[in-house]
């Protein structure tokens, strides 16, 4: 992230310690809703490591999405410091955040947000066209098992297939981190499994760090680490002794 070093208001930020890609300190987020203040994050400290598969658990409204959005540069914290490698996200400007999203981070949402006017291949190409060192659209789609759906439009794909295209689109630029906000939330069980398998594959094969939000506790076995949130706080952070493979998961 050389360019951002010079652009950042705080000047050259310290590199994070070896092995960390995200670090958040005393992070808080307050939404002003007319008269009332909604506190979404309270003094959160958080770290994400290279290549890690992290599962974020917590009740609805506990602040998971808010945390992920701040990490992804889609939202800014009210207070606190958040840093991606050498880029201080909490003070980065619009331009730096755009470049950050373009090169370093991939998103997967509950709703697939594919471009309906583009085929699967083209949806992925949309990203590869603006990236420095992407894989080809075909490679990315093969990774999620959609090599035979290349020229289908979103309207011609099932929900699970659409979500896999969204994953392929997110990983095609070879990001360092993939942020997934309830990617299986809108899918049935079997389809959800296929999608999770795709995420698992990406993490294992490419070494991409994955932060995965879910409210399905059964999925936590899939992660290297499980972070529990409640009322805007991180209440627990535990390492799984054994990271389960997809086939071992039962729910």
């Amino acid at each position, binding site marked *: 992230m050389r360019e951002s070093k010079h652009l950042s208001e705080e000047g050259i930020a310290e590199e994070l310690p070896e092995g960390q890609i995200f670090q958040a300190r005393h992070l808080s987020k307050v939404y002003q809703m007319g008269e009332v203040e909604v506190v979404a994050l309270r003094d959160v400290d958080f770290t994400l490591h290279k290549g890690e598969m992290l599962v974020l658990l917590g009740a609805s409204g506990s602040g998971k*999405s808010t945390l992920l*959005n701040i990490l*992804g540069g*889609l*939202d800014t914290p009210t207070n606190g410091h958040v840093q991606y490698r050498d880029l201080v996200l909490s003070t980065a400007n*619009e*331009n730096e955040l*755009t*470049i*950050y*999203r*373009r*090169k370093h981070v991939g*998103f997967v*949402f509950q*709703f697939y*947000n*594919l*471009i*309906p*006017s*583009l085929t699967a291949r*083209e*949806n992925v*190409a*949309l*990203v590869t*066209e*603006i*990236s420095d060192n992407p894989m080809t659209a075909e490679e990315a789609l093969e990774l999620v098992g959609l090599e035979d759906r290349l020229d289908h*439009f*979103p*309207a011609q794909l099932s929900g699970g297939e659409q979500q896999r295209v969204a994953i392929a*689109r997110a990983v095609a*630029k070879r990001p360092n981190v993939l942020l997934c906000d309830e990617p299986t939330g809108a899918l049935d069980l079997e389809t959800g499994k296929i999608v999770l398998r795709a995420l698992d594959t990406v993490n294992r094969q490419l070494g991409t760090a994955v932060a995965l939000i879910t409210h399905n506790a059964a999925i936590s076995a899939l992660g290297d680490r499980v972070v529990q949130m409640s009322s805007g706080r991180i209440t627990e952070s535990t390492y799984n002794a054994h990271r389960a493979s997809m086939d071992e998961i039962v729910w």
Partner: protein
Amino acid sequence: MTPLTKKMFRDLWHHRGQMISIAAVVATAIMTVLSMRGVYESLVTSRDAYYETSKFPDVWVQLERAPESLRKQIAEIPGVASVDTRVSFLATINLDQIEKPASGLFVSIDNPDAMLGRLHLRSGRFVRKWDRDKVMLSEKFAITNSFEEGDSIEVVINGQLRAMEVVGVAISPEHMYIVPPGSFFPDNEAFGIVWMGRQTLSALDNMESAFSEAVLTLQAGAVEEQVKADLDELLKPYGGRGSYGRPMQISHQYLENELKQNKTMGTAIPAVFLAVVAFLLNIVLRRLISTQRQEIAVLKAFGYSNADIGRFYFQFSLVAVLVGALVGLFVGVWLGDVMIEMYKEFFVFPNLQYKLSGSLLFFALLVSILAATVGALGGVRNAVALPPAEAMRPQAPARFHPGIFERMGLGTYLSAATRMVLRNIERRPMKSILSALGVSFSVAILIIGLFMFDGVEYMMNLQFNVAQREDISISFNRPLTPDVELDILRIPGVAVAEPFRMVPARFHSGHLKKEAGITGRSVAHELQRIITADGDIIPLPLSGIVISKFMADHLQVRRGDRVSVEILEGRRPWREVEIVEVVEDFMGVSAYMEIGQLHRLVGGARSVSGANVKVALGQQEKVSRTLSDLPAVAGVASPRSTYEIFQKQMSEGLFIGIFFLIGFSSVIAVSVIYNGARISLSERGRELASLRVLGFSKREVAVLLFAEQGIITFLAIPIGWYIGYLLSQAIALSLITESYRIPLMINFDTYVYAAGITLIAAIGSSWLVRRRLDRYDLISVLKTRD
């Protein structure tokens, strides 16, 4: 207030930008209807009332001289209701204060109460038959030259200088539009009407107990053609010049042209705006309804009927229309007043006022409500047709296909982003085409407006800089021998003198006929030239005749054909002449011959009736004065000075005209593009937010959003040029008259301006939407399901 009404006002508020833009188009439509059509109606009503109360004649005829006793015989022609006779002629007026020569049409008055085409007194009193050396002046001439009752005015009649007293100022229904002879545009400083007691006037012109003009009104049911034929037959021995009806009466003709133009524009322009209104309401409502599927489903589930929901969306569009109509009403009435004031500059009415008729207002409202209904129909039909359960479910993703470029095999050259833009345009071809058509009207309106100026400017320039190059044109009050040329040349300051002969004639071809003067001049003459519509100069042929295309069309003859010519003076011979050339000219109806040929055609003595003069630099004023004092000179005119007045008036008109045109055009362009972009933003907000998440910058996303509108605008411009050209052609054709024909001449600049203004409007409206796009909250868009 019912919950639905509340919802309506909230929705209206939420979509206020779009509603305001639609209301603006409605307002413009109503404004143009009420002003243009309202002015038209006011003019027609006022004119008809004036014609009625003043006993405006139906038929006119000029002749050399007939005894007053003939009047009874005219009255006995079947179909004639009443007859009035006059003495009238052109003569010089000496005005100290102005540099150019002035002249007047002198008209006799017997009994101001019993005359046809009664005068309307503005100030002072009427002249009476026996008044000696008293005159009344036409209003504009009196005002422009500051004449008041009691002032003295010098006139030169048959070489006699006489001082006359001004006793009154009046207006006449026959002179609502006053143009100097041979001209087309008022010159209130240099030309006016002078009314004088019959006794004095006849004495000055040796016309005692005689008349040189007769006017008639017809009985209801009379056949005008038959009356004119009988009249012409009766007046043959007295040098009758051919009778004519209202369509050929100059003042009536100009007013009629103006009305026709007003009516055409006052119909076409509002129609365009109303079509745009219907289109906009259609696309806006369709979008609104598809975003409100869930709400509609819930309402239906609660037991609201289809009719309730249909009425809701209909009322929604009605509010925009009524707000627009209200604004349009006020602006339209104001503009109507302004336009009427502008008309008063050129046309004189006894009391002209802008009056908005109830029926026009009703009609305007009805048509705009109709446009709202047509516009709302599609969307409402969708809303009503939606079964509740279906409506609860989110809309399935839109279906797309590979675009035309990819089917053509050009796909590999296009980026994914470009494909997005093209497929969105292609997905709803009808919407894209109608949007382009809407924007193209914004270009076309500018073209048709500016074309009027281009065409008139071109016509004037050819006429006064290429065809008529004389500084002074003089007309004699009696035939003179050709050697008058030498006398004129002897006047100090005269550089060139070219006498001509003008002979009144009637052309016949089968049962078709047309009156026109034949101008005879020497082939060596260079001041006046025959030009075609393309600006080519045609040499005067040594034999045969050259006629205007207007006459050729009227007579259904072509070059090489022979026509019968009935000469309307002297021994009134009938002759056959070959048409050797047909020229497309712009003004009047002309016929030209070599002067020797013309003498032979008419028979009798060789004579000339006027001369064109070119003067040495700076001598114009002096020479004009000398010429106008000559006894044989009836009038001295300077075509170029009329042209200068015209140009000045025109540039003022141009300024006002362009102001309104830019307004009209921008209203269309902005409303179509703004609504198009807003709808795209609403339909594709999620898509654009996704792109931002994927790392596209704000600018890149904006480009993707506006590329569609941009492509539509670029397609619309050439379409607009073409539509503008076609409409201009239609207007030019509809305005072809005896007095002038506007050539279809559109300057290159006009095309550039039209495109430029539309582009600026397009960029402006994109900018409005861009601000909204920048404020878009990325996450909240992505969190919601479409």
